[in-house]
């Protein structure tokens, strides 16, 4: 009887699980957020196609600023420098991050593992300006001592802050991987190196590629640390753009920004699909 009474009290319709999407005002907040995030990008992109010299007065469609940016020797020089630094920094940081990820997921748990984890991700937490100033002072000492003033300083600095960005997707990939697979490889006569080469590496490859791309984008977009670390005549694309903004602004800067944005979006899209792939 008590059961029947309790059953009658129960609401007729099954309770829907709590969903933030059904909260009042959810759609409004979402739209406002997306507009705030992306709206400012549109004038930038639109005026990169302006036929006139203004970045605020529309005078018709034209590719002229893209052509002018493309023809600009200085832009070419800093773009190549940016790509070189990003390629080296992402390559080295991905290699180091791969080793770090293997070391933190494929060894018996050791004392201080959490400390190591925090230390690897330290560049995510420390303010960029602090790292920049620290590197500026440190590199200045080395420059005085050795006399070397080449691109290696920039590459080293970029490698340092790229490591956590490369590390996180690789580690996520390794943690999601069934460790029994490596045991199975060993069971089937694979030496530790063969097991790594034939099983672990192919399975973690999407993580490595995603990590490298993320590191590449982060390096390509960096301003603060680059601005502080670069020697004279070592402008990268972002620091060059920053320098240009201090003078007369033409839609050429819009064109370069739009191109940089396109590259970034393309890489991030690729990372998204890579990290989604199951195998």
């Amino acid at each position, binding site marked *: 009887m008590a059961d029947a009474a309790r059953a009658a009290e129960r609401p007729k319709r099954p309770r829907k699980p709590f969903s933030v999407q059904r909260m009042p005002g959810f759609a409004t907040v979402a739209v406002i957020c997306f507009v705030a995030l992306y709206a400012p990008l549109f004038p930038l992109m639109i005026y990169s196609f302006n036929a006139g010299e203004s970045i605020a007065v529309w005078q018709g469609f034209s590719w002229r600023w893209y052509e002018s940016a493309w023809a600009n020797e200085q832009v070419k020089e800093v773009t190549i420098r940016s790509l070189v630094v990003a390629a080296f920094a992402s390559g080295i940081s991905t290699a180091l991050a791969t080793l770090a990820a293997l070391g933190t997921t494929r060894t018996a748990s050791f004392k201080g593992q959490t400390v190591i984890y925090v230390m690897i991700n330290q560049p995510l937490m420390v303010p960029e300006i602090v790292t920049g100033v620290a590197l500026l002072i440190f590199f200045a000492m080395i420059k005085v001592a050795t006399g070397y003033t080449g691109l290696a300083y920039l590459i080293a600095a970029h490698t340092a802050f790229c490591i956590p960005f490369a590390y996180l997707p690789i580690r996520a990939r390794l943690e999601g991987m*069934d460790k*029994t*697979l490596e*045991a*199975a*490889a*060993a*069971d*089937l*006569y*694979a*030496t530790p190196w*063969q*097991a790594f080469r*034939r*099983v672990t590496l*192919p*399975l973690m490859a999407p993580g490595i590629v995603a990590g490298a791309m993320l590191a590449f984008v982060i390096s390509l977009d960096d301003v603060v640390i680059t601005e502080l670390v670069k020697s004279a005549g070592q402008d990268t694309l972002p620091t060059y753009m920053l320098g240009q903004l201090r003078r007369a602004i033409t839609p050429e800067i819009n064109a370069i920004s739009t191109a940089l944005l396109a590259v970034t979006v393309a890489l991030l899209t690729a990372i998204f699909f890579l990290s989604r792939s*199951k*195998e």
Partner: protein
Amino acid sequence: MIQSADVAVNVAGVSKIFGSGDQEVRALDDVSVAIRQNEFFTLLGPSGCGKTTLLRLLAGFEHPTRGEIFLNGTDIAGLPPNKRPVNTVFQSYALFPHLTVGQNIGFGLEMQGKPKAEVEQTVDAMLKLVRMEALKKRRTSQISGGQQQRVALARALAPHPEVLLLDEPLSALDFKLRKEMQLELKRLQNETGITFIFVTHDQEEALTMSDRIAVMRDGKILQVGGPREIYDRPAERFVADFIGDTNFLRAEILGVDGDAARLRLDAGGVEIAADLPEGAARSGAVTVVIRPERARFLGPDDAPPDGESALDARVEQMVYFGTDTHYHLRLGGDERFIARIQNDERLARAPAEGDSVRIAFPARAAQVLKD
């Protein structure tokens, strides 16, 4: 130590201790067992009994804290997994997701450095053995659970190991498929002539498939024997209880003659004959076990046949199971007894609840327990 050619695996005094200090866990405690060539040997026990640890020691994923493991006369306790002619079928199958079915099966042979033609040939033979020829080029994610199971078997058998280790490989399959695979495993073992060491917690699986069974608990092997021996002659309470249903009765030993004993049951004071395992007490109070299906009803006027013992009881409850009926009986002295009687239309009159009955069981249906 005896090291006959008949023994494939000899585990000698092996202990495995995980952790240290307060967190020390003794997963295996001085385990010794000899597994014969071409035998279907099962390690049976509840989870945490050490059966999987023993299997991992044989595979080389763990190394013993103490003791030796001989494979065909060679001490392998210190060898890494890739240096042991032993392969494993994992509970999760652990098929390589980035390789095809054929590549999975050929993996071990390739790692052994076998020539390509031989690898191809063996892979095809293995696919035929497990009846999967059509799926060679498939990804392992594109085949069913039962098919994955077959691929895992073929992959482990392809390098023709001296011993095949199977870690609860059937537990992920549904009931019907599991029955099918039990027969399939027996067939594979017969056809390949490889020693199978099979780990399970399912007593029925162990009884139907094994040549011999080792029952384990708390890191120790309690009893080793054929399925019939384990079932009919359990030496310890745990073994009797873990495998099948059984009745425990208190008794007192009156006299001993070799491996037979005369006892008086506390219930009703009836004298019975029982088997006495090695190492059991030879006098005083003991516990005996009698399987429920060994009992049968006597008519009210029937005398028990020669050598059989009879007990008076009252039916408390009946549970119908289709092929048989379980009678929950109360004996004199408040002990309980479950009798499993096959349902038979020809039976004159089946007892009803509350009836007084007499049950009889054959001379050596009872077994004395060591504990």
